[in-house]
């Protein structure tokens, strides 16, 4: 039997920070108050949200039990996948063992959850066993519905000119290889798509377009490549100023924009894509629910076009077992597809013992790692309030952030929230969110991954 290491990387960091700064701080700044409890808190999902919550609750709860349900052994730094798919990073840079971040004392169940019985406070696991909870944090992330595009599956990524940054780290690597092959061919048409649903990292389809344009321009044969962007709605990005900026920049860089089209089918062998016209009278926007019935309508106008490279962005939703549970939104724009939470308190709208965090929640924006950073302290405070019989008082502003890569080597630090039509919420007075900047690129390239890992540790 393998002996556990005396000191893990996590312990070393704690020792280091303790030695460096602990003696400088008054006691009140080094630890938040703890709560004595016998409650069983179950966290569904071990991505950024789940592990961040496990880290925070481990420090705040005494006597209770924390269970985290997550089958994956490897933690993926998904914000780095656009860098991999753009040929800037190696895939290995984005992966670490989940065990590096799992807090001591957390009961890690390495299985898939398959059902939630919210009325009886019970989780069903793939093995057939069940877990009962007193409080539940749903942090299951997002489901990629490639199957809603006829003829498309994640296995096709890297073949027949198909790329997709979202599917997996392997998919991101194969997307980079596919773009390289297209560039090497010296000509042809590239189509970049967007999804008619909320998506994680809503800037990623735009970033992939911009970084590919950088590579095309660098090849000094730009004029031999046609680039089109197919958007299901009028907008390309939810933040209005950035939306206008991207549209203008696309026009300047020779990207042909077509609005109100969604990718409905793909024929990999023929390298043809079918797009359904969905607007403007039946416009899909990021606020509309995804409905399979609407995807199967027969009376939609369609166009079929050839491509040499296509970047596929799949429709997304909460996982099926969440959609099939009572926890899913029953009405409103997220009906049937996303977790039903108060977007400010993060508490479930009908089950007060349930909280949601991260990509799974029904919210107009907020499917980024930066959102998790902002949401985690709110969920922590409000869960502890509810455990003590109080109402949740902490509120999430909707803060989210997107280092909008506008070319390889430059980016804009776009930070915004719910208020005032997604007004900017800049963190740094010396970085203008409207400026393309090398420093912002350096942050994306060097600093945001360390900051992400600090979020996992509940330190940021």
């Amino acid at each position, binding site marked *: 039997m393998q002996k556990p290491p005396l000191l893990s990387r996590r312990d070393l*960091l704690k020792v*280091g*920070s303790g030695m*460096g*700064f*602990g003696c*400088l*701080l008054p006691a009140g*700044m*080094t630890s938040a108050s703890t709560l004595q409890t016998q409650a069983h808190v179950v966290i569904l999902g071990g991505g950024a949200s789940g592990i961040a919550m496990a880290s925070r609750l481990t420090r705040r709860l005494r006597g209770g039990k924390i269970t985290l349900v997550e089958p994956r052994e490897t933690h993926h730094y998904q914000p780095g996948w656009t860098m991999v798919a753009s040929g*800037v990073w190696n895939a290995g840079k984005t992966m670490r063992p989940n065990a590096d971040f799992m807090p001591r004392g957390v009961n890690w169940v390495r299985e898939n959850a398959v059902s939630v019985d919210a009325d009886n406070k019970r989780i069903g696991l793939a093995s057939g066993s069940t877990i009962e909870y007193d409080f539940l944090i749903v942090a299951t992330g997002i489901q990629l519905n490639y199957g809603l595009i006829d003829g498309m599956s994640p296995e096709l990524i890297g073949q027949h000119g198909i790329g997709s940054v979202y599917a997996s780290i392997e998919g991101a690597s194969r997307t980079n290889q596919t773009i390289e092959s297209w560039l090497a061919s010296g000509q042809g048409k590239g189509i970049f798509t967007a999804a008619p649903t909320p998506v994680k990292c809503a800037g990623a389809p735009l970033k992939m377009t911009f970084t590919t344009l950088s590579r095309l321009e660098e090849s000094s044969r730009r004029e031999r490549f046609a680039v089109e962007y197919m958007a299901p709605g009028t907008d390309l990005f939810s933040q209005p100023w950035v939306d206008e900026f991207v549209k203008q920049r696309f026009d300047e860089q020779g990207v042909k924009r077509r609005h109100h089209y969604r990718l409905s089918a793909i024929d990999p062998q023929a390298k043809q894509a079918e797009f359904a016209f969905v607007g403007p009278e039946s416009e899909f926007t990021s606020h509309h629910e995804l409905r399979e019935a609407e995807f199967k309508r027969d009376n939609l106008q369609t166009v079929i076009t050839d491509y040499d490279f296509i970047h596929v962005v799949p429709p997304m939703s909460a996982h099926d077992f969440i959609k099939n549970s009572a926890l899913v939104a029953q009405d409103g724009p997220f009906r049937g597809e996303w977790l039903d939470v108060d977007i400010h308190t993060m508490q479930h709208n009908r089950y007060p013992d349930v909280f949601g965090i991260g990509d799974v929640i029904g919210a107009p924006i907020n499917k980024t790692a930066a959102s998790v950073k902002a949401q985690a302290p709110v969920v922590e405070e409000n869960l502890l309030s509810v455990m003590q019989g109080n109402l949740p008082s902490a509120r999430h502003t909707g803060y989210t952030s997107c280092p909008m890569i506008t*070319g*390889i*080597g*430059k980016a804009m630090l776009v930070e915004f929230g719910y208020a005032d039509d997604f007004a900017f919420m800049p963190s740094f007075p*010396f*970085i*203008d969110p409207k*400026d*393309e*900047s*090398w*420093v912002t*690129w*350096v942050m994306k*390239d*060097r*600093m945001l*991954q*360390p*900051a992400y*890992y*600090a979020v996992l*540790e509940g*330190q*940021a």
Partner: protein
Amino acid sequence: MTISGIFTILMYALAPFTWLLVVGSIVVISLHLLAYLRGYQITQHRSRYATILAILIGLSAVAWVPWLTHSTLANVATLFDWVALTAGIVAIFIISLVILHPLSYLISLLREG
């Protein structure tokens, strides 16, 4: 953001460069120790060549620091970009001088002796 959080981020950011920091520290400490044992005093020794070379290395950072970050000088655009790059140039000048200054003393000893 807590101080502990800032420290955690710095630890993760510096982790890939641990080997470089260790090797660099060994080189700097060894050079200073060796020179000190042979009479080197940082305030007494003057070396125009070490200073000029350190300035040149610092200025050369304009070209290769953006490259190290997968970017180019053309993308250094905002005022804060230039402030950050200038800070990098100054830091590289100081590091170069910290290495070259005792090294120039040791070389001058070799020449004399």
